[in-house]
């Protein structure tokens, strides 16, 4: 308060001095009591104005949430002036009212919880394999929360985007995904969960039984964590599955794939932090990497990005050299569509792809407005421009419209060839 008054006096010295001069002039020389009184009001208002300005000046960049008080103060003085200076009273009252509205709105803004977006991650290329565990844990915290020490900050979020769904602190509400506090211990218990089917992936009832054919299940706590990142649907903690799937499918994206695309090094950093922050001794970098390599096939491992933290928007999902089942997996078709003959393709958000049977019927549908004349054309059109014809009962705009750019011509051809041979009630074609 004292600081505020001194600052206000320092700022408003001259106007106040002049007004005081006027006061003396009116009071002593002119003996005009009413003018003197008005000047007094003026001095008071000026004093308040400069206090308001001083409040702004001192606290502008500070944590103080009391700046709107300045605006309220100006409102008060404007109305006061409006009463005594009736000739321009309307201006004062309108101005005062505007200050009041602004004060209320910025007061509201200051009353809400304050979240500050952290600094962007630095543009340096990180050498995860050469880091100490402490450095690795710091990088992990940055990836999860956006900065070192940010894990204590409400709402902080980093490139990994984990806190959008997961709670990280003990007792935190986390209804979209499991709270990850205590995961170093829990991961060891989870692999013994009967639903986990340790060592027997084929017995799992989840939509995806293995991270990739032949990957197997986790055998250690770290492998459990790695598998959860690489294949969230392989095992879904009870109660956290996609609604209506009875916990057979997870809403979480595979973290090594777009849009998040963490590299193995980054995943190792994340895991190291999860151990380190609970005072546990994390597995070594090499051990963690090995655990990930078990679940992420060579071709799917994101390369460490050079200088662009965002996922490479221009890169292809599949270039056509892969077998068709891998193309379906890489383009993530399998997440939403059931495709007979393709392992893991059991999604239900989109229609079942028996296009050898469906396509001819769809083209005949009076509601069909597309340009396709044949089954391959229809499939091509549906992949490149999904909204041209939307199958009844399924929402429009759910399927991304980017596949035209994300798949090479070769990959597209393989998809079309395969799908046009899938017919209802017949053996699926061979994967080529």
């Amino acid at each position, binding site marked *: 308060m004292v600081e505020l008054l001194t600052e206000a006096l320092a700022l408003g010295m001259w106007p106040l001095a002049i007004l005081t001069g006027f006061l003396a002039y009116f009071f002593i020389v002119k003996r005009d009591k009413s003018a003197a009184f008005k000047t007094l009001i003026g001095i008071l208002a000026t004093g308040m104005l400069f206090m308001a300005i001083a409040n702004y000046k001192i606290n502008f960049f500070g944590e103080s949430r009391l700046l709107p008080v300045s605006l309220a103060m100006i409102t008060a003085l404007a109305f006061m002036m409006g009463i005594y200076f009736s000739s321009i009273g309307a201006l004062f009252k309108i101005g005062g009212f505007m200050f009041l509205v602004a004060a209320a*709105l910025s007061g509201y803004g200051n009353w809400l*919880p*304050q979240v500050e977006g952290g600094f962007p991650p630095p*543009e340096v290329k990180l050498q995860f394999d050469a880091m100490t565990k402490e450095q690795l844990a710091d990088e992990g915290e940055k990836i999860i929360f956006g900065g070192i020490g940010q894990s204590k900050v409400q*709402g902080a979020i980093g490139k990994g985007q984990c806190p959008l769904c997961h709670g990280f602190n003990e007792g935190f509400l986390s209804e979209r995904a499991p709270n990850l506090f205590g995961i170093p211990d829990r991961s060891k218990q989870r692999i013994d969960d009967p639903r986990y089917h340790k060592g027997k992936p084929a017995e799992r009832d989840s939509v995806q039984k293995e991270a990739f054919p032949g990957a197997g299940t986790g055998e250690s706590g770290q492998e459990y964590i790695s598998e959860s990142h690489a294949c969230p649907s392989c095992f879904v903690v009870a109660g956290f599955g996609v609604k209506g799937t009875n916990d057979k499918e997870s809403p979480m994206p595979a973290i090594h794939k777009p849009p998040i695309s963490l590299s193995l090094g980054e995943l190792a950093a994340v895991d190291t932090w999860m151990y380190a922050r609970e005072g546990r001794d994390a597995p070594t970098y090499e051990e963690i990497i090995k655990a990930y390599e078990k679940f992420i096939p060579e071709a799917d491992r994101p390369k460490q990005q050079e200088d662009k933290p965002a996922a490479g928007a221009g890169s292809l999902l599949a270039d056509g050299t892969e077998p068709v089942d891998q193309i379906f997996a890489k383009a993530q078709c399998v997440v939403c569509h059931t495709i007979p003959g393709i392992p893991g393709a059991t999604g239900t958000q989109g229609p079942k792809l028996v296009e050898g049977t469906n396509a001819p019927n769809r083209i005949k549908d009076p509601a069909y407005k597309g340009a396709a004349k044949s089954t391959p054309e229809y499939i091509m059109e549906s992949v490149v421009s999904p909204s041209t014809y939307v199958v009844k009962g399924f929402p429009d705009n759910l399927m991304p419209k980017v596949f035209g750019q994300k798949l090479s011509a070769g990959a597209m051809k393989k998809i079309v060839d395969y799908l046009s041979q899938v017919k209802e009630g017949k053996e699926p074609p061979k994967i080529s």
Partner: protein
Amino acid sequence: MGSVTRKKTLSVIALSAMIGLLLLPIIVAIPALASGGGEPAAGAPPAEAAQKEGAAKIEKARDVYYKTEGIVSGAPAPKTADNAQFYPRYNFESRVLLWFANQQHLYYGSFVLAVPIFCMVIEFIGVVTKDKAMAKKYDQLAYDFIKISLTAYSLTAILGGILIFTFLTLYPAFFGYLSSIFRPVMHIYALMFVAESGTLYIYYYAWDKMKEGLMKWLHLSMSVVLNVIGTLLMFLANSWIGFMMSPAGVDEQGRYLGNIWHVIHTALWNPLNVHRILGNMAFGGGVVAAYAAYRFLSAKNDEERAHYDWMGYIAMALGVAFLIPLPFAGYWLMREVYAYRQQMGITLMGGLLAWLFIIQATMIGILFLSSNYYLWQALGRMRGAERFQKWIKYFVFILVVGFLIFITPHTIVMTPAELKAMGGQQHPVLGNYGVMSAKNGGINVIITTTVLTFIWYMRGNKVPAVSWSKFGNIFMGVFFFFAYVNIIWLAIYGYYIPANVRVGLSVPQVATTLSCLFFMTALNTVMMKGAKQLGPIEWGKISVRSQYALIMLATAFTWMMGLMGYIRSSVRLFWHVNEIMRDNSPWAYTHTVGFGANMISFNVLFFWISIMFVFWLGTLGAKKAPVEAKVPVPGRAPEPAVGH
């Protein structure tokens, strides 16, 4: 008589020549645009030649958004570092200075773009109105509007200069990059600006000279030209921000690929354009309404009060007319944002900036509440409107309930921990509208109630005299009742069906609201034909409080514009140009909500203080020129239906 005709013809020719000259830059610009900015047209043949010679100098690259191949014809985006070369600075946060300069320019720019549109509309109403006194009144009003905007126009230009200067001084590398990208259209921008100024001045100064007959129509068409230029100018300005948010026409390194149309026509350009036009109009209405309120409150006699009461009413009605479609344009913009980058959408609605959207929701509610309040107050100046007063309390109740639902976030906010999880990941289809059928129910209830209030206002002093009036009233009542039922039912229904079906519910909800708006106002207009008047509208007899409602509307609107602009700008996070050019200045982080709110308040108040000064200057001018006789205000005369 003959000489007069000749003079007229001559002046028409002179005027056409002038307008033609002013339009020349646009005509010149069209082929340049069509060929993609001139440069590739000239650049292509040598490129082929070079290839034939085997010189591998021509480098091709892929457009980041359109995915087309293009010849690299620009330097990559500069990689900046935190030093005085890239970010020269005063002893203050550069970003805040630029924020201030930008926002002020934008406020004035919006205002001077919106007012000519009003002028056009009002002048047109004036021309087609049969009632001579009314026509003159409208004409005078349009003239008043353009007079206000003229002073603001020069201020806009000055502020634009200050903005460029600030930009150039504080962010030279960034500005240099942007202007190198937009170089092919920079001269068009400049020429259009000249054309805009020229047309505006001719339009203003020729007002009295071109009052009658054909000349009046010419004058009116000039306002159309003025608005076309103004709108194009704004589109060009928008292309800069569109490029910053969703770049296109460059490769991953930010190198220009020779197609300027791609650079302009980015993913978010059109939604931004539509949103901004509507926003400008509502904002302009607010500013003019505030001006009228100021003149009303400082009026010295009844005649002035009547005039400015009327002016405030017209400005408010125009502003609200554009406020109603604004949320829908906003939905479209958000949908495009989600389609462009889901992450960007989540940052906006469910991440870092989510609280700002809570503020926005609150403000939309406040805007509708204020306009309702104004209309209820306005009932007070009509004899015969007393019979509606007792219903207002129920309206307030409905509005408040709708408002409270509307500002409640989708997931119940108990802690920020809950909020940070809001929106986003759980639904794969957030790209559409957002999964907020309940909130949509809230806002639609508010808008429907506003429509109902407006219909009551239109009926204020009248009783329908058509033979089927009883049926009409009952039908209207039943229709509104079931509209409310349908909106609320859909809101509740949304909780029982899966998210991907739920997203669609907002469309029938909006359709219900719009059905009320269109059918019921139309039905009401038909029913009011030849209605029995209970008493005249006594312009000027409105309460003082109502004028504060107008000021509230104007201030809140300005604030909201600042808020939305801040949100739009900060969603790029630490990118100057999204994913192309990084912000490496010390101010690449996002401020807290409170800081943002304080800054917006500062900008808003600065704008209002300065524009009130402009208004005040305007009154000085008016006093010195008593020649400009006030048109007798036919306030007491029966108003034709257009008065509403």
